[in-house]
């Protein structure tokens, strides 16, 4: 029996309370579960739902405004255009969960990419090696920030603002006389500009379904072994069904020829599986490992976490490393999309990254949010740019509309949370 670790001081037999009084919320039929889900929603625990709602509203809006919005081609556009911001938003989640911020995430991606390209183009370093150097510098950057925030105790806003300035200087120095370098590595260019063969897209869906089913059943088996209730199995089938239908639809759309000019363009853009894999690994770490749990705990109550024996300093420190490292990936997506690197690379994007996370439902004060939320938030922001890009508006109007839609999307979020019984502070 595996209870031996539980303190023997606890003697369940002395109590008169029936053993099943304290449940885990997993009991009950499908109907109970669905009801419980809606009750959770009503009580304000909405997750990314408002952001999804915002996304849907924007989609409907833009599809009325432009006949090109709901085309296969634009769908592929959206995915590749959003990739950079999705990655950056996901990177920032690691520090936002702690209630910290990384204003330098953008310039970190810019600086490491400048280094990468200059190493390849000017110094003739093999690109794989140069990429490793770029990642190493990204990790070092996170280590540097983490040191000052977690060890020395400077507010992350100040440290990363300092780095935001400093890295602009370093990028300027790296880029030097050339000013602007072309990305001439086919593998890098392919990330955002090439597509997987059509069969590979379907294969990917198969893998996703298989992994999803495997983890679900493993979880159920473990719970059964521990003797606690499992959710009704119908939910697993429903989940797999939804993935199959939604994913299948997306892949079907992307598998059609979307070439408008010469040649056939079809298949899932290569960047998509990369993002999905990182999202899956990151979510796994945040949800199922001690590291992730401790991130949430520190964000919720750092002192409580410390008293529970969590290595608060170490976790904080490494969160910045995760952030900087994923920021390098986002830089990679960016240069693949742009095809060149200049001295201003990455300067503008970081506030959008934070906004993406916040719009998706990640709390700036720490302790609440998931990677998927940031990804969905980034999609919302990307769809604004994408849709407006089809409308050919003057720059000023475009800015005003972008700002307004951002506030509007957040309003949808805020109001749905309040309706659901959220904030009591509005007095």
């Amino acid at each position, binding site marked *: 029996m595996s209870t031996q670790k539980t303190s023997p001081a606890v003697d369940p037999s002395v109590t008169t309370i029936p053993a099943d009084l304290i449940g885990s919320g997993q009991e009950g039929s499908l109907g109970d579960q669905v009801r419980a889900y809606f009750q959770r929603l009503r009580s304000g625990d909405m997750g990314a739902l408002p952001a999804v709602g915002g996304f849907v509203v924007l989609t409907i809006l833009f599809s009325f405004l*432009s006949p*090109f919005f709901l*085309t296969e*081609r*634009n769908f592929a*556009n959206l995915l590749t*255009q959003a990739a*950079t911001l999705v990655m950056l938003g996901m990177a920032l989640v690691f520090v936002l969960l702690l209630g910290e911020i990384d204003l330098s995430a953008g310039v970190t991606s810019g600086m490491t990419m400048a280094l990468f390209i200059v190493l390849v*183009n*000017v110094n003739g370093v093999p690109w794989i090696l140069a990429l490793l150097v770029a990642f190493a510098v990204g990790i070092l950057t996170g280590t540097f920030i983490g040191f000052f925030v977690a060890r020395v105790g400077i507010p992350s806003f100040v440290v990363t603002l300092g780095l935001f300035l400093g890295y*602009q200087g370093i990028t*300027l120095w790296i*880029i*030097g*006389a*050339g*000013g*602007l*370098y*072309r990305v*001439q590595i086919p593998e890098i*260019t392919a990330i955002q*500009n090439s597509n997987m063969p059509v069969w590979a897209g379907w294969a990917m869906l198969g893998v996703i379904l298989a992994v999803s089913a495997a983890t679900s059943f493993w979880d159920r088996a473990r719970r059964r072994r521990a003797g606690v209730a499992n959710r009704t199995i119908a939910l697993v089938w429903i989940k797999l069904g939804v993935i199959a239908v939604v994913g299948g639809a997306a892949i079907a759309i992307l598998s059609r020829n979307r*070439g*408008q*000019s*010469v*040649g056939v*363009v079809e298949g899932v853009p290569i960047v998509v599986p990369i993002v999905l894999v990182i999202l899956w690994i990151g979510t796994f770490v945040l949800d199922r490992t001690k590291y992730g749990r401790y991130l949430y705990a520190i964000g919720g109550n750092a002192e409580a976490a410390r008293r529970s024996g969590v290595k608060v300093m170490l976790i904080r420190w490494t969160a910045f490393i995760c952030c900087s490292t994923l920021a390098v990936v986002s830089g990679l997506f*960016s240069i693949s*999309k*742009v*095809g*060149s690197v*200049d*001295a*201003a*690379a990455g*300067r*503008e*994007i970081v506030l959008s990254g934070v906004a993406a996370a916040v719009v998706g439902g990640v709390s700036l004060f720490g302790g609440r949010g998931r990677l998927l939320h940031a990804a969905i938030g980034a999609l919302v922001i990307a769809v604004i*740019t*994408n849709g*407006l*890009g*089809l*409308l*050919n*508006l*003057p*720059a*000023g109007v*475009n*800015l005003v509309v972008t700002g307004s839609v951002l506030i509007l999307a957040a309003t949808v979020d805020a109001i749905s949370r309040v309706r659901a019984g959220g904030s009591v502070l509005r007095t």
Partner: protein
Amino acid sequence: ACSSGGSGGETDGGGGEAATRACVILPDAASSPRWENFDRKYLEEGLDAAGFESDIQNAQGDVNKYATIADQQLSQGCGVMLLVDYNGAGAAVAEKAKAEGIPVIAYDRPIEGVDYYVSFDNVEVGRLEGQSIVDGLATAGKDPASAVVVYMGGDPSDGNAKMFHDGAVEVMEAAGISPAAEPPGVWDGEKSATNFEQALTSLGGKVDAVWVANDTNAAGVITILDKNGLVVPVSGQDASIAGLQNVLLGKQTATVYKPVKLEADAAVELAVALLEGESPTADQELEDGTPYVAVTPQLVGPEQVVDVVDAGDADPAELCQGEVQAKCGEYGIQ
């Protein structure tokens, strides 16, 4: 921090030692690599060679910093001020300098109330860009009037972006071109790529030419064109490495080359004369009567890339990388 070399000639202002310093303010480091990489170098070399001290600083795209730098330079004393305007911050500085009796040269961008103006003509740069589009269309055998041309300008809050735009439009309009789409202007490769991708989508994937304000934006546009297997006339400026490579590869029709050295040398010559107490003249005048030393920009197609290399403004080793290598041979660049 201050040495006193030079001839110490008397100008109409500044005290003793200060009169030998040339104070330069560059606008930013982001809109173009030229300021930090070339202007700084050539101006410093030129003034040094003439035996004068130079104080060259960059406002990093911040008007408040611009004013601060001017204060700091003036408090150390200047014999002449060479200002590259940034979003209008130059005018107040020029006024202040003149109040202290220091002659002011507006460099590359016009400033109200200065003593001299040395520049490439930014409107001319735009005209050259427009010309390259018009020529490109002609080569491709497209009728300008019916051609689908997308306009990709620079950040509209930047005064120069407007000059490039005005010049380009002037030429293209004359040729009968009208914009099929004109996304919001930016100085940002990524935004430019996204904006162009969406414009292209909304044009049903059909485009005949893209007027782009600079090489950075052009690089983003070209990536999208590549992705769609399109090769159409694309303009640009700055003669950056990537721009020149794109030109050699035939992905970009031409880039406007502004031989910084020419402009810098003209400015240095003028500044040295002022520092030595002379009152130099110029062959041209602006409308308000300011003496104007004009330097001509140059359109660089594949054949002219070699000129840029010869002028020392591009390193052939950096240029002739990968797929470009073959082209370098073709166009005689080593």
